[in-house]
């Protein structure tokens, strides 16, 4: 029997259609139907100046909006061959890691909600509010920050704000241990997610899973390793696990939070004085850049014609993660509730996933960029 879920359903946060093929209670196969939030962002960006396009790139995805603007700015900087001032690079690291903390906490809280564990859901959301406060202190906005510009960041940070940000991080840290233990050592919860939705390393590579979802299956890619700021000035550990089940994915996201906190501390301690923005002489050309968004690698490929954008394509992590979730994770899962929880651990973000979808004559929908890029 096929159980369709969505597009609007209590278990889903975003519009997507999940088709589960069941045999009795067991879910043997899953299929995803996209297309509900396709807005045509890349097409709108064509022929626009970067000032307009960066505003749009922030609205590819609202949860990890920050990393999109940073990657966009870095791509244009690479084309124009400019170096961003060090202070701006450090500020970018602080915002990026704050964004990662809030996104991971949101991802985990959604998972706990789908497991119907209200206590953890509430506690994790409460922790997230402190990260949101820090983001607001630094940038002035909660979600779409408008923080990056080509050549640096929009404004200098007020040094007085570093103190409360550090305090907020401390609050998150104090809560963190107990919350993590509640999940990791709580017998009922852990039993329900160990061994469910397993994706092996081979499958993760085949499904092109990235980010914490891929790293929970043993892949070691993290695009912060290799990024010029992180490589030269920061110390951090890439979190990896090998089980590849719901438990591992949730814990990978949890364990990345202390790393991010330590990165922010390093940045605030060592932040250099100086400019935060350089003038950029825009050149024509093509460049590609990859960065580690909270959900994994985001790629921007931009071709410019002087100050205008000629062609742009964006590859987001969610599309690969959701696809590998449907193909490899939801396969012989004990119940429909577990299948929905498994879907939630892949940290789906439908808004990022949908920019170009092509329907061929047989009515089969393929996502163009996934096939083209890889």
């Amino acid at each position, binding site marked *: 029997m096929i159980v369709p879920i969505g*597009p*609007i*359903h*209590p*278990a*889903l*946060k*975003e*519009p997507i259609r999940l088709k589960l093929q069941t045999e009795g209670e067991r879910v043997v196969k899953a299929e995803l139907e996209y*297309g*509900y*939030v*396709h*807005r*045509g*962002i890349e*097409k*709108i960006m*064509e022929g626009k100046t970067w000032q307009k396009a960066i*505003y*749009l790139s*922030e*609205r*590819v*995805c*609202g*949860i990890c*909006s920050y990393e999109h603007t940073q990657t966009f700015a870095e791509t244009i900087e690479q084309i124009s061959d400019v170096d961003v001032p060090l202070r701006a690079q450090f500020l970018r690291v602080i915002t990026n890691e704050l964004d990662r903390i809030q996104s991971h906490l*949101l991802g985990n809280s*959604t998972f706990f909600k789908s497991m119907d564990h209200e206590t953890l*859901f*509430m506690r994790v*959301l*409460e922790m*997230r*509010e402190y990260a*949101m406060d820090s983001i607001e202190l630094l940038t002035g906005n*909660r*979600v*779409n920050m408008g923080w990056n510009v080509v050549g640096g960041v929009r404004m200098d940070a007020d040094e007085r704000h570093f103190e409360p940000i550090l305090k907020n991080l401390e609050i998150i840290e104090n809560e963190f241990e107990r919350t993590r233990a509640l999940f990791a050592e709580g017998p009922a919860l852990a039993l329900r997610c160990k061994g469910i939705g397993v994706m092996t390393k081979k499958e993760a590579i085949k499904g092109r899973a990235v980010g914490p979802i891929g790293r929970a299956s043993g892949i070691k890619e993290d695009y912060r390793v290799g990024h010029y700021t992180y490589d030269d000035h920061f110390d951090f550990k890439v979190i990896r696990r090998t089980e590849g089940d719901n438990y591992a994915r949730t814990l990978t996201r949890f364990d990345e939070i202390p790393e991010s906190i330590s990165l922010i501390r390093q940045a605030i301690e060592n932040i250099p004085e100086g400019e935060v923005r350089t003038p950029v002489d825009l050149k024509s050309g093509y460049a590609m850049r990859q960065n580690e968004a909270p959900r994994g690698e985001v790629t921007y490929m931009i071709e410019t014609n002087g100050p205008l954008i000629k062609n742009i394509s964006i590859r987001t992590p969610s599309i690969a993660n959701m696809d590998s979730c449907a193909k490899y994770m939801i396969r012989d899962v004990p119940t429909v509730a577990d299948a929905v929880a498994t879907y939630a651990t892949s940290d789906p*973000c*439908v*808004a*990022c996933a949908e920019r170009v979808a092509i329907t061929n004559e047989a009515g089969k929908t393929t996502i163009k960029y996934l096939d083209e890029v890889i």
Partner: protein
Amino acid sequence: MLDAIKDVVRKSSIHVCIVNCGGCNGCDVECVALLSPRYDLEQFGIYVHNNPREADVLLLTGAVTEQWKDNLKRIYDKAPEPKIAVAVGNCPISGDVFAQEGGHVNAPASNFIPVAAEIPGCPPRPNEILEAILAVGPQAIADRGREQK
């Protein structure tokens, strides 16, 4: 008498369904942030469950993409009377940045269903969303209940 009791009950128990008809998610995460203990939506008798069949208030986010053109009305019809729709963010009000050449959006949402309140912002802050639900929700629902008779 019965009406009066119904009014009181309805006003203090509002069920909310978030309908994302093609936005960037920003507004949705702000709606989810409302559930956190900091804002604690449930102390106002508001309950978010994302089930249109039980909803009193539909929180619309997003700019009505192609797929939602027909579905939006369908979802609205599924919700039982009395019901109201609240547009959250610039997207359902004007289409925001997506309403330009090349974009595939059909904003405003009020072309498809009646919208009772609009909260501008990209995204609006959680307390603004809360304020709007509380401002229009209870009274509109009580009024609608009577019109039905």
